[in-house]
């Protein structure tokens, strides 16, 4: 019984059904937000400040963050995540040929278009009733592993890394910097940095050795990606039913060479982030609270078994559990399901604190999924995107273009760590050439490359916080590369057998169909839900990892994941005067999620409703 809040029960055969007796089973009461206490505190106490923080987007402005902090007690009293960039790709997709979804959704983002292209192709495959041949599936797996080899190092060394650099730590926590200079780095023999201070210096933005190496590291997989898939980040070869390219032994060999080089980089990175994490924990155990939030995580899994994936919704629980990344939901640290049907029917999206109108007065499109399982009126297949722009931002009412996705009405979190956590906890991942899942950990057996063969083990952490997110991301680079390597070996094997077809022919159906692409981005969970009729899309809904993580409060009064993480973050930086406060602990908390804002707010259309994004980052005083 994985649902505690939705009105869904299971029969003796394990089939979900609606609880009997409720007239309106998915109805809920909206809980109003009471800010009177916060407003009073801000008014009366000089040490309680409204601060507006720009953790990602100071310049163009797509994510802003508002917080009320008590500088004496060193606490965050209130937090609001604001997505202020919006476009309208879902609306653009309506009425178009379904195959356009791959190309249009890929353009949502400037760095991770390929994951959207593949998620769209999976949704189309389900709707069309097709699946790629094994060679095409294995190549697609390689593609998306390479994608993460771009995204994860970029985040660790260029985006999050500077928060742990000498330039930052020396300024915000001088005593910590002194300690770092005197602390030997345990992984020195592998990564070459004698002290923690040496690592911090190497993380200095723009000039640090690790910063530059991280930048270089993204180039190698980009080369492999371009060799196999034509172009990065908007691949030219992703089609429903596989890939449109012909791949020969030469391309596989070129890819092999680059995967090997990337595995070396991944091995070293694990030692770096182990050293950083352990240093901060030992310096002050309160860092374990930085970015802490409940252990509620979700992932749809990814990287399909070339011999199991058939693209059907009916068989999704089976092919889902054959993935290299096992689908799953973690609630309070416990795995509650790995079943893609359960993951899907537990999804809802709420807009009470977003610039959208509810669609609850529209006729209900789907009471059940294609397998007969009950669906909420707030499920993506039932969602209608109805923008409601306003120039008034209210922390009590509406304050973001992001929506509030929930699973079983719980606040969830997406990320590389959700992918590894669900796979590790499930312990059913069947591809064990390089990777083992144990129920409590994931073992990574990295082959000899330039560095010797090494065994690593990522253990499900006791603490859940910003440091663990980053530490996991370092392991995830190696995990992704081992998945790529495993699939490359499968490709070589298929090539030997002459099974080199990369795609399956199809015709666009003219009748009514629905589909969903269960996939993943570098930042985690990704779904594309579509509905089509007469050969054209009639609804298209995307939930990205940052849609989940940056979500506002929901109608039940629960804060989103960024907001929760910031609320629990102690202010550990050293400051004497309010003007010295930089908010570094809050930055660390938010950046640990690897925010990707253009994807978050892809849903908007309409005329004359342009919100002035630059205003978002000004003082929040005067906003309700």
């Amino acid at each position, binding site marked *: 019984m994985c649902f505690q809040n939705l009105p869904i029960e299971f029969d003796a055969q394990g089939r979900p059904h609606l609880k009997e007796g409720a007239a309106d089973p998915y109805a809920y009461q909206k809980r109003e937000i009471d800010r009177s206490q916060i407003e009073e505190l801000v008014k009366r106490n000089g040490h309680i400040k409204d601060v507006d923080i720009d953790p990602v987007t100071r310049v163009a402005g797509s994510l802003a963050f508002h917080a009320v902090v008590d500088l004496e007690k060193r606490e965050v009293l209130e937090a609001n995540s604001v997505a202020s960039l919006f476009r*309208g790709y879902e609306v653009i997709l309506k009425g178009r040929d379904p195959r356009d979804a791959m190309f249009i959704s890929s353009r949502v983002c400037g760095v991770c278009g390929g994951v959207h292209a593949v998620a769209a192709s999976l949704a189309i495959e389900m709707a069309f009733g097709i699946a790629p041949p094994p060679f095409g599936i294995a190549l697609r797996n390689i593609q998306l592993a390479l994608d993460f080899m771009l995204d994860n190092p970029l985040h660790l060394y260029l985006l999050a890394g500077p928060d742990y650099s000498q330039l930052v730590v020396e300024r915000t926590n001088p005593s910590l910097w002194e300690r770092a200079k005197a602390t030997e780095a345990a992984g020195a023999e592998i990564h070459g940095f004698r002290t923690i201070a040496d690592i911090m210096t190497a993380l200095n933005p723009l000039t640090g050795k690790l910063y530059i190496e991280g930048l270089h590291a993204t180039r190698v997989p980009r080369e492999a990606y371009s060799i196999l898939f034509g172009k990065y980040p908007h691949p030219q070869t992703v089609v429903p039913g596989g890939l449109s390219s012909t791949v020969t032994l030469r391309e596989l060999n070129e890819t092999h060479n680059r995967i090997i080089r990337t595995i070396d980089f991944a091995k070293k990175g694990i030692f770096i982030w182990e050293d950083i994490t352990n240093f901060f924990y030992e310096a002050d155990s309160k860092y374990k609270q930085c970015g802490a939030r409940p252990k509620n995580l979700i992932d749809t899994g990814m990287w399909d078994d070339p011999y199991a994936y058939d693209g059907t919704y009916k068989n999704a629980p089976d092919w889902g559990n054959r993935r290299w990344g096992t689908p799953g939901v973690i609630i309070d640290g416990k795995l509650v399901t790995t079943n893609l049907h359960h993951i899907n029917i537990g999804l809802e999206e709420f807009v009470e604190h977003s610039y959208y109108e509810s669609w609850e007065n529209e006729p209900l499109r789907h009471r059940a999924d294609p397998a007969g399982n009950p669906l909420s009126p707030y499920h993506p297949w039932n969602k209608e995107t109805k923008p409601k722009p306003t120039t008034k931002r209210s922390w009590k009412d509406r304050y973001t273009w992001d929506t509030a996705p929930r699973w079983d009405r719980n606040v969830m979190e997406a990320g590389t760590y959700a992918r590894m956590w669900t796979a590790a906890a499930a312990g059913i991942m069947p591809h064990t050439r390089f990777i083992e899942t144990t129920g409590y950990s994931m073992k990574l057996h990295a082959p000899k490359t330039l560095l010797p063969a090494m065994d690593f083990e990522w253990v499900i952490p006791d603490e859940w916080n910003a440091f663990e997110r980053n530490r996991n991301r370092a392991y995830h680079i190696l995990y992704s590369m081992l998945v790529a390597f495993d699939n490359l070996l499968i490709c070589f094997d298929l090539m030997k057998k002459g099974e080199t077809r990369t795609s399956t022919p199809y015709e666009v159906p003219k009748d009514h169909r629905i589909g969903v692409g269960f996939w993943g981005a570098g930042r985690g969970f990704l779904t594309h839900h579509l509905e089509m009729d007469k050969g054209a899309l009639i609804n298209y809904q995307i939930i990205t990892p940052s849609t989940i993580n940056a979500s506002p409060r929901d109608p039940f009064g629960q804060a989103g994941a960024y907001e929760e993480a910031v609320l629990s973050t102690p202010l550990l930086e050293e400051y004497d005067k309010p003007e010295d406060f930089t908010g570094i602990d809050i930055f660390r908390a938010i950046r640990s999620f690897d925010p990707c804002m253009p994807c978050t707010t892809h849903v908007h259309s309409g005329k004359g409703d342009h919100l002035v994004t630059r205003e978002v980052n000004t003082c929040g005083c005067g906003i309700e």
Partner: protein
Amino acid sequence: MSTPPALPGVPSLLREPAPRVWHLAPLESAPEAGGPRVLIGGVGYWWQRDASFGLVAVDALLKHPWPAEVRVTKLDYGAIYVSQDLLAVEPAYERVVLIAGTERGREPGALFLSRWEPPHVKPEEVQARIWEAGAGVVDLDHLLIIARHFGALPDDVVLIELEPVEAGGGLELSPTAAGRLNEVLDLARREALAPRGAFHAT
């Protein structure tokens, strides 16, 4: 054709070429010597009406023949990766012409031709822009600042900018912006084929 005045001058404090702080081996697909020496690039996201002007303009430019020394392409992705691609070209482009729809509070619908004079930028601002570009934001100024920082741009950079009339989700350019496409074709051709260093701010 009358061209509106160039972008109000950003003081050029960085007269010397930015040092290449990192170097990359050329991509296997990089042009060989004798390949393109001038890049015309459209910058932006797709389907954002006039904010997508640079990409729509490049589509229009690609319908016309170009001499071998000119490469026309869409730069519809993050500035970090665009910088890597520019650095991989050997020999480096001598002139880069960038086209974009950019909101700068000027007369809506007007075209602005300017020679980019790199402003002095503090490292903090470069990193702030890298944070955004790494998070998926595509933006002309990000591209200029980040690519310049990494030594990926030549000294000779020309901007053709449209001040959007209508921006936001949508497929079509505004009628005013659409009416500017032929002018952009002329401007881009003239700037791409002009002697290096020459600039026609007329």
